[in-house]
């Protein structure tokens, strides 16, 4: 038995953890059919860790859902599988490829896979009859997210209505739903990018290797360093070359840029993040760059 807090004070990381665990338990207690959105990225891995802690020694009492863009990094899928098998949770994969084949979403060759995820995701939630879906969104990421509730209500079409959000007071969450509606739940709303890294470092948990510095053949497009891949043919004038890079976010590999970095440990990443001058989305996510209100628009449609 340990007495860790002689002054009855919790560090900010412990306070964030306690708040997130409270949210996980509240949802498990009040919703009929929750599901955890798991991308294999660092934020969803932190969510898995928090869910593991919330119900220990019992297993996580809900499945995890991954939307497979078909363009995912293999390292990320490997980490996903390791987590799923260690925790013994059920994995549901909703594939964008299948959604295109089945006519659920239309690939016109111009729309990004990230955007096609919206229809795929909504379809998977509806098919599974899920009433609550945990997402790894953080309020420090983006201006529209800064105003989103922890319990974010979605109508029958999966839409978010930013002007009509339910007030959220104290730690009292309102999970009331009508038939066909669902709730997006953001247990790590109050975490920042630095908190996520601090926590990964503290907990010593497994994350995809592409977050750490490695050699990769990359090319420049729209001011981003993109990975060379069959999914991502070089256009006129683009040249791939080997660089020492790492990824700050993981997503659709045709759109997710990397940064030149030699950070090969969590501690080095923390040092790098602490002095970073560009947000992780601004630096590396093509899908958020199209307009200043890009995220707000995608959220209204049903994106996380």
């Amino acid at each position, binding site marked *: *038995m*340990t*007495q860790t807090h002689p002054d*009855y*004070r*919790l*560090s*900010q990381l412990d*306070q*964030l*953890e*306690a*708040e997130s665990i409270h949210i996980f*338990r509240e949802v498990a*207690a009040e919703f009929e059919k929750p599901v955890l959105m798991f991308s294999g990225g660092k934020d969803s891995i932190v969510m898995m860790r928090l869910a*593991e802690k919330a*119900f220990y*020694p*019992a297993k996580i009492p809900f499945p995890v859902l991954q939307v497979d863009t078909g363009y995912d990094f293999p390292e990320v899928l*490997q*980490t996903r599988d390791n987590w799923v098998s260690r925790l013994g949770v059920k994995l549901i994969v909703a594939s964008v490829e299948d959604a295109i084949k089945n006519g659920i979403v239309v690939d016109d060759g111009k729309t990004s896979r990230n955007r096609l995820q919206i229809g795929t995701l909504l379809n998977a939630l509806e098919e599974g009859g899920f009433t609550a879906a945990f997402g790894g969104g953080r309020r420090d990421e983006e*201006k*529209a997210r*800064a*105003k989103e509730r922890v319990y974010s209500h979605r109508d029958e079409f999966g839409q978010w209505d*930013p*002007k009509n*959000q339910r*007030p*959220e*007071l*104290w*730690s*009292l969450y*309102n999970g*009331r739903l009508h038939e066909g509606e669902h709730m997006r739940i953001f247990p790590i709303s*109050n975490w*920042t990018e*630095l*908190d996520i890294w601090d*926590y990964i*470092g*503290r*907990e*010593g*948990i*497994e*994350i*995809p*290797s592409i977050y750490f510095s490695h050699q990769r053949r990359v090319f420049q497009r729209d001011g981003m360093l993109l990975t060379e891949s069959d999914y991502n043919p070089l256009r006129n004038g683009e040249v791939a070359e080997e660089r020492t890079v790492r990824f700050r976010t993981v997503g659709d590999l045709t759109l997710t840029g990397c940064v030149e970095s030699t950070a090969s*440990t*969590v501690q080095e990443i923390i040092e790098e993040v602490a002095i970073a*001058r*560009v*947000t992780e989305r*601004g*630096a590396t996510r093509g899908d958020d760059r199209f307009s*200043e*209100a890009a995220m*707000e628009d995608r959220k209204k449609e049903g994106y996380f």
Partner: protein
Amino acid sequence: MASVSTGSTNDGRKMDLLRFATAGSVDDGKSTLIGRLLLDSKAIFEDQLAAVEATSSAKGHDYTDLSLLTDGLRSEREQGITIDVAYRYFATPKRKFIIADTPGHVQYTRNMVTGASTADLGLVLVDARHGMTEQSRRHAVLLSLLRVPHLVLAINKMDLVDYSQEIYDQIAADFTQFATKLNVPDLEVIPISALQGDNVVERSENMKWYSGPTLMHHLENVHVASDRDLVDVRFPVQYVVRPKSDEHHDYRGYAGQVAGGVLRPGDEVVVLPSGMTSRIAGIDLFDREIGEAFPPMSVTVRLEDDVDVSRGDMLARVNNAPKPSQDIDAMICWMTTNPLRPRQKLAIKHTTRSARALVKDVQYRLDVNTLHRDSATKELGLNEIGRIQLRTTVPLLVDPYSKNRTTGSFILIDEATGVTVGAGMINTAS
């Protein structure tokens, strides 16, 4: 190498957390102040600043409009107002800060109440040229009603009154006198210029007569640990953990977040509302057994006896427990357009317990500008605050809000729409 285990590095940067709510309108320079705190603590990134600079010049401003950093939704940017609560984050080596940025106008009272509900500190902004206004008085009243333990009055735009000490003294005296009518345990009055940066992070060279702390110094050092109740044990049970696995066949734990007091193994506890007693066999934090649990820790408690405990129950001490009650007297902030009226039935959520409630009486409406109690009106409209009596279908395990902000608060939900329509702070229960 497909993936790596990171190997535990450290215990994170050991920092404290302060949640604070800001109140004030665009005119008071609130967004500029927040922009300045974020900018000076390096929480603003180049791409965010570039987007704001581009928008500022597109609007024809010859300065960078820092308020654009916080006005997040397109509809807000178009109207130039803040319509919702926005959460902002920044950190110094000492503390991490969460700002609940709320709009100041009377039609957004509910947003301010929302932001203040979780705040350790409330920051009220006034314009030095105008002094105390109806709006700043209302902000102070709401922060005190929500029992935000620390209050800061920032007198902004001191640069526009020649950094006058007389003006500072006058506004500080007005406000201090008004605050005696309220419950304000800790008040700090700081003269600043958000635009010029005086006394925000750096000490002002223009106000040598002021010897108090800068705003940032105060935010970093205000003592919040003692605000929590470490005496009265309150543990609302959220979830019953029963693994039913071979390895943990007989494990039965009660998961929840400590709302008050310190729980230790061996302590005798009473389960409410049943009144059964037992002792704490152990307290688990993930895979570790711990010696003490205190607010706001999320833990799992095991009991020595096989007593019936489920979600919505509460663990407390035998001689120090809330009384189960179905008659609640509370202050309400009403948050929807259809008024609250006597005989109305609503859903109520209090800690982990949900029930139905009948509005027995609307006793008075509180004028948050004058503190006048209007008992002639028997209803509360959108953004109005008043005192009501409720009767609930099952007993709730309540404390006065002045004693415990977790066990003293509740929300009211419209059963037809599912929307949160009221925020309640309990006076007494009988």
